[in-house]
């Protein structure tokens, strides 16, 4: 995050907004007083002299959102994105904290590279926390120096992009990270079942003959890792789950009391394999894991409510225009999400009564912060003034020209959405204003 050296920061009063702060059980209209980089008071008795009053009536005031799954592409692929541009996209989408994955080039697999991310985060408009690799070079063979990276500030470990196919390595990673009290975040797709796969192995794959990625590619690895968690201890977080079967496995593991959490992306909650067909194979509908089915969406949505799914994360995966401008099977997997996530979740889930605004804040701020032990996800007095002001009535159409990300590979281009970020405040500073 950019540091505002020596400048005197204004005092702000966010007045008359609907505050949703599940961490403090607050869900009502109120005022928030911000001084320096922290929240000084909720509903202050007196307004300090010189305070700038910002009228946010008719809008929601959320703790700043936390994206626990961002590919900022720095170092190595700055033509797709860098930490600064990812942070611009983040704050435009209401995220005040992003957590960057380790599959850069070179990968973030040593303490000095963790430090590099923190150094580069001085260019960012939001808070940036790095995840370190589980294995050296993301090769899935030898453990990376997890303890050293933890000391340098890694908030979790992940070989995201790759599945840890070697069961013994996975077992040791869980055990080793356990002593550091950090979670392992896992990308769960059996590499042999998914080999050559382009889309979900379902109706569309059979219709077109495209190689599919079966649901079992996800559930087989999750089932193994739940067994390994029981064996090795530690904390396991399953990234971007997509199938009804995954939900069921995680639900049972939670019932058993295992320390397991999981996330889902906005696109897996709203799009299906049919969108690939209907778009005539638009590569902006191609990501790993792939878009699944209506039944999967139904199961995922149900478990947002009952707490089986802990978090909504973007898996923001920028790719340059020329890389996605090819026939479907020749393009890389991945879509961007930071700038559309909140509005898509609002439009498709909150506005339709599937989850509440409070659920949204829990899924997109409170829980990600809790899973990674980050100072975020709350509007408590004394906490960082990281705040998202959201206008639930704004209607807008997703236009790639408006993206602040360097890339435009969004499956939501052209969509009409309801609700939009009105203002984003990071550390008491207004970093985005619509």
């Amino acid at each position, binding site marked *: 995050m950019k540091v505002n050296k020596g400048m005197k920061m204004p005092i702000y009063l966010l007045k008359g907004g609907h505050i949703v702060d599940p961490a403090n059980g607050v869900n009502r209209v109120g005022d928030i007083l911000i001084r320096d980089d922290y929240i000084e008071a909720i509903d202050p008795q007196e307004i300090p002299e010189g305070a700038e009053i910002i009228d946010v009536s008719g809008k929601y005031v959320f703790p700043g959102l936390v994206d626990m799954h961002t590919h900022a592409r720095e170092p190595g692929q700055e033509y797709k994105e860098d930490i600064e541009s990812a942070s611009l996209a983040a704050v435009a989408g209401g995220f005040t904290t992003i957590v960057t994955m380790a599959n850069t080039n070179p990968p973030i697999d040593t303490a000095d590279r963790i430090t590099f991310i923190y150094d580069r985060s001085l260019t960012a408009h939001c808070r940036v926390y790095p995840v370190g690799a589980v294995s050296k070079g993301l090769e899935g063979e030898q453990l990376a120096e997890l303890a050293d990276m933890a000391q340098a500030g890694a908030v979790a470990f992940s070989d995201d992009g790759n599945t840890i196919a070697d069961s013994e390595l996975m077992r040791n990673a869980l055990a080793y990270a356990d002593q550091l009290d950090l979670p392992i975040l896992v990308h769960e797709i059996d590499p042999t079942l998914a080999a050559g796969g382009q889309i979900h192995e379902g109706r569309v794959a*059979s219709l077109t*003959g495209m190689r599919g990625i079966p649901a079992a590619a996800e559930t087989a690895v999750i089932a193994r890792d739940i067994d390994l968690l029981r064996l090795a201890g530690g904390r396991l977080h399953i990234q971007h789950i997509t199938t009804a079967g995954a939900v069921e496995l995680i639900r049972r593991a939670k019932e058993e009391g295992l320390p397991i959490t999981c996330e889902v992306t906005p696109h897996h909650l709203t799009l299906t394999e049919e969108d690939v067909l209907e778009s005539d*194979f638009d590569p902006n509908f191609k990501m790993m894991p792939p878009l699944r089915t209506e039944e999967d969406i139904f199961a995922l949505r149900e478990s947002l409510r009952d707490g089986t799914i802990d978090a909504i994360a973007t898996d923001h995966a920028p790719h340059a225009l020329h890389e996605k401008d*090819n026939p*479907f099977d020749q393009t890389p997997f991945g879509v961007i999400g930071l700038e559309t996530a909140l509005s898509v979740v609002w439009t498709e889930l909150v506005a339709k009564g599937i989850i509440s605004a409070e659920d949204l804040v829990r899924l997109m701020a409170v829980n990600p912060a809790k899973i990674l032990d980050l100072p975020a996800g709350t509007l408590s007095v004394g906490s960082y003034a990281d705040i998202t002001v959201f206008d639930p009535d704004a209607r807008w159409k997703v236009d790639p020209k408006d993206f602040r990300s360097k890339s435009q590979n969004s499956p939501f281009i052209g969509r009409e959405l309801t609700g939009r970020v009105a203002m984003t405040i990071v550390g008491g500073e207004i970093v985005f204003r619509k």
Partner: protein
Amino acid sequence: MSFGHKNLFGLKDLSADEILYLLDEAKAFRQILERDIKKVPTLRWLAVVNLFYEPSTRTRISFELAEKRLSAEVVNFSKSGSSVAKGESLRDTVNNILAMKVDMVVVRHSSVGAPQFIHRATGVPVINAGDGTNEHPTQALLDLYTIREKFGQFNGLKVVILGDIRHSRVARSNIWGLKKLGAKVVLCGPKTLLPPNPDVFGVEYTTDIEEALAGAQVVNVLRLQLERQQSGFIPSLREYRMFWGLTAERKKLLDPDHIIMHPGPLNRGVEIDPDVADDTDAVILEQVTNGVAVRMAVLYTLAQKLREA
């Protein structure tokens, strides 16, 4: 004119009437092929590029002859020896060719949806000459033409598509076409080479070749890509022939009034025995002849559409 498309991406998109329209048009061109001078001046104004990103003998030559017999200007592109080897993208390659004032694209590509991609990128009419595993509409049209020549119509005909359905664009285009025209389609092959969800087509399927062939009027035998063995879909070519090869013995199960088809190239002694391929009930070379007429019909129809626009 009862044809409502600017492109030919696949038979999935066409109505029964549109398919019959193309078959009727093809009939006229088929007669021209029997003349001494097999050429008409109809499309002198049209320039076509045949973009072949995958190897092909039959389809490429067939399109080229169809274009030349309609007097269109033809340019052939194949992946080897082109700038593709230097890393040029599909969009750039196509746009460069079109910049030389070419009106229509015929494309064979390993990617599903490549024809749609090219049309999106350029706006030029595109004829799909095979996109990955998805569709090969002109092959299916020539198969349909050949069936109609023999049986006059499609209603109630039992048509078996035999072999690697899972990876076959020929099978898919045939399924769409045959279903729309009222034939009874039965897919047959080893379970690993049927699509994982075979119900999506709404046709019958079985792994039992005897059951499939019983009383059928048409068998369309698909080429077995020899690399399917290395990829683990089948244990051996020997076993494939034993259980799914079309042999003289198995042919006895068919309706006495039947035809044997194959899109080529043949793996003699694997999916089809040599004596079966060469017997009088096999119409494999007639298919090839009809292919030229069918492609003339497609080119002519889309050229008319282009002119109207």
